[in-house]
């Protein structure tokens, strides 16, 4: 009896060991969660481009639920034009990056993917292996420099970017600044000075509203705005990627920006509930004048309009926009996930061709009416800027006046900058520690991407 049971026990141990080995082996050679769907081949297949129009197929599109009506109408227009059906798969805006990445990780693929144009986000989907190279298409030339920055890896363009980039800067309440006798701030020194004046003259007003509970808005004031002037021609991000400088250089713009942010905080320029404040409240406050200034991006304009019950004239009268950087007025921009489209490799040639024809349509025949309806800045040359509300015009001006790409859009692993800068706001970390962590995340992500 004893010998039998001992024997059985050993057999059990062996079975467990064998199972472990099998698992390890499958793990070592097939990462289905990372690479499924890459069956389409490594290089661009020229047969996918040109040829007769594909019709009568159903294309699944993973799209962000924050898509503006103009994009939804564009999908409808394409359906009418092509005879194909667009099947929209809603990805909740609140959990957009996580949901896409995790669905992607399971090997699921749509025929068309709406996704961030940032290099780092493309890397996280293993883009060079999983996306169709669109470099040969005609929209690339019209996009100009944007085609090398949005949806681009190693000189190849994998995405068409028709949504207006998010422009980062500072919203301010015009009458609050005027009442305190202040002009529009251009630099971080101006911000600090204006804060002192506002606190003295109008103690009921919050000089700068920070929204820690939303998790991302603090990135704008603590870094995107400050670093903007150093990233002309993407020079700062390039120097990071080439290894010439490090993100946590104590004298580098990242650390300096975080320090400037911390001193604004120490001077009491933020709302007292900065850690629990929300993006939505920040916009309400700057509109009503409860807050003088809010650092954020152009994506906030629809929300401001909604807060004014759609009365854009009220918003235009109350709120202004400016680029504000370390020492000069430079705005930042980043490609928006809304209206940036990829064609993932699905292995279904017919649908891949149809998806490419979708890209042709939205950057060609359908583009003009989309821009008219959306009332935003066109990203493709040869299309006139439509009539926009006053605040959008101010943003357009800041964008055209030498706005630079935000540093994080090219740096892998920078998705962690949101939570890390949140720790600075919460007083849990020093500026240097935040930068050190970001450098570590960058090292981790670039190692993962094989950079």
């Amino acid at each position, binding site marked *: 009896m004893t010998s039998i049971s001992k024997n059985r026990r050993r057999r059990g141990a062996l079975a467990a060991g064998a199972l472990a080995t099998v698992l390890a082996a499958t793990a070592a050679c097939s990462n289905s969660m990372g690479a499924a769907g890459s069956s389409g081949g490594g290089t661009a297949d020229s047969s996918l481009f040109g040829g007769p129009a594909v019709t009568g197929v159903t294309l699944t599109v993973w799209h962000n639920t924050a898509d503006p009506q103009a994009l939804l109408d564009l999908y409808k227009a394409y359906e009418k034009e092509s005879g194909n059906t667009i099947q929209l798969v809603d990805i909740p805006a609140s959990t957009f990056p996580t949901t896409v990445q995790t669905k992607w990780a399971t090997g699921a693929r749509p025929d068309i993917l709406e996704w961030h144009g940032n290099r780092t986000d493309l890397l996280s989907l293993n883009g060079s*292996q999983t996306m169709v190279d669109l470099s040969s298409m005609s929209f690339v030339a019209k996009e100009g420099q944007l085609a090398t920055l949005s949806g681009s890896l190693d000189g190849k363009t994998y995405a068409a970017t028709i949504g207006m980039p998010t422009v980062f800067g500072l919203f301010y309440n015009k009458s609050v600044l005027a009442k305190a006798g202040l002009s529009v701030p251009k630099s971080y020194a101006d911000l600090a000075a204006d804060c002192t004046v506002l606190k003295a003259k109008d103690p009921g007003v919050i000089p700068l509203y920070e929204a820690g509970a939303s998790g991302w808005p603090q990135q704008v004031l603590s870094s995107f705005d400050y670093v903007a002037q150093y990233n002309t021609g993407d020079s700062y991000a390039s120097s990071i990627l080439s290894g010439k400088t490090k993100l946590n250089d104590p004298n580098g713009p990242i650390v300096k920006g975080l320090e400037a942010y911390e001193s604004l905080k120490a001077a009491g320029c933020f709302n007292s*509930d900065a850690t629990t404040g929300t993006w939505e409240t920040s916009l309400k406050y700057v509109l009503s004048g409860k807050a003088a200034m809010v650092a954020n991006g152009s994506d906030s304009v629809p929300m401001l309009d909604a807060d004014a019950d759609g009365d854009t004239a009220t918003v235009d009268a109350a709120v202004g926009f400016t680029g504000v950087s370390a020492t000069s007025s430079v705005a930042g921009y980043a490609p928006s996930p809304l209206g940036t489209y990829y064609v993932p490799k699905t292995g279904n040639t017919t649908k891949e061709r149809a998806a490419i024809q979708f890209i042709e349509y939205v950057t060609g025949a359908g583009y003009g009416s989309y821009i008219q309806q959306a009332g935003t800045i066109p990203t493709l040359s040869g299309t006139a800027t439509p009539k926009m509300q006053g605040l959008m015009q101010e943003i357009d001006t800041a964008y055209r006046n030498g706005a630079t790409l935000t540093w994080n859009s090219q740096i892998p692993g920078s998705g962690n900058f949101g939570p890390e800068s*949140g720790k600075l706001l919460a007083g*849990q970390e020093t500026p240097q520690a935040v930068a050190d962590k970001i450098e570590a995340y960058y090292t981790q992500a670039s190692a993962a991407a094989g950079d």
Partner: protein
Amino acid sequence: MPSLTSPARAPRPARGARRGGPVGDAALPAPGSAAPVRRRGRTVFRYAFALPSILLVLLFFAIPFIANGLFAFTRWTGYSSVITWDGLSNFRLLQQLGVLSHATEVTAIYAVTSMLVQNVVGLALALAMQRTTRGNSVFRSLFFIPVLISPLAAGYIWSAALATNGPVNAVISVFVPGGFHYAWLGHNLSALICVACVDAWKWTGLVTLVYIAGLNRIPERISEAALLDGAGPWRRLRSVTFPLLAPALTFNVVITLVGAFSALDVVFSTTGGGPGDATAVLNVALYNEYGQSFFGMASSLGFVITLLVVLTAVPLITWLRRREVQM
């Protein structure tokens, strides 16, 4: 969420069963029957009845559980199409990023707080509502309501209640001159404690019922004897009730602690891990890594949760059971 039973405790057999003979009689051949043939037939059907359950547990619990121990040591990301063995580097990097020890510490504080609140409040309520009277039944039903609400919903309710202008501060303001406007969820420690208390609030009703069951299983004659011996109420509680309540206590302490190690929902709906990372328990950190396609690192954090559970549950069960009075 806390599961409800501990495998360490098998249900106590009913009285009649002891007379019925040793457990597992059925597998012995009946005297005089054609033993080998019948036994094989029985064994096959036993396996057939257990098979669907075994398959489900194997595929969706056991294999993932073992695999987690392997994935924790691999470089496995969405960036690349291969998974490679990576030794301890996931843990090293998580430590370097300040995630590993911080999230473990936050999880431990969270779990201990939640466990203490649940058991203190639960036991007090159980003592107050022990007897099955009409009035007690009403209170029992009332205190059970939070158990039915989803942890997510509980989080939304309490994040409003704890808001700077919420009812909690409003009540305190009645006693504090000049009003009280503390941001409970806006400061590191108070946020962590509050979130753990919300978790406790959600589950206390269940803990209470387990204690009531335990109390009612104490033979009446023992308490009566103590009463006749002239022991006062506090003394009866200390030297009769508590020792005899030990099985329920063991169960409740282990289950509430282990359950809170895997917390996620309440944190998601109250603070989302903030302010900063003050309430980022291990599962929140795991979700963050997962969401950035760092699957290996996420597995490493899952592995830490497993370690926490094993390293606390096993000694705790052993220790608490040794103190139990055998009845």
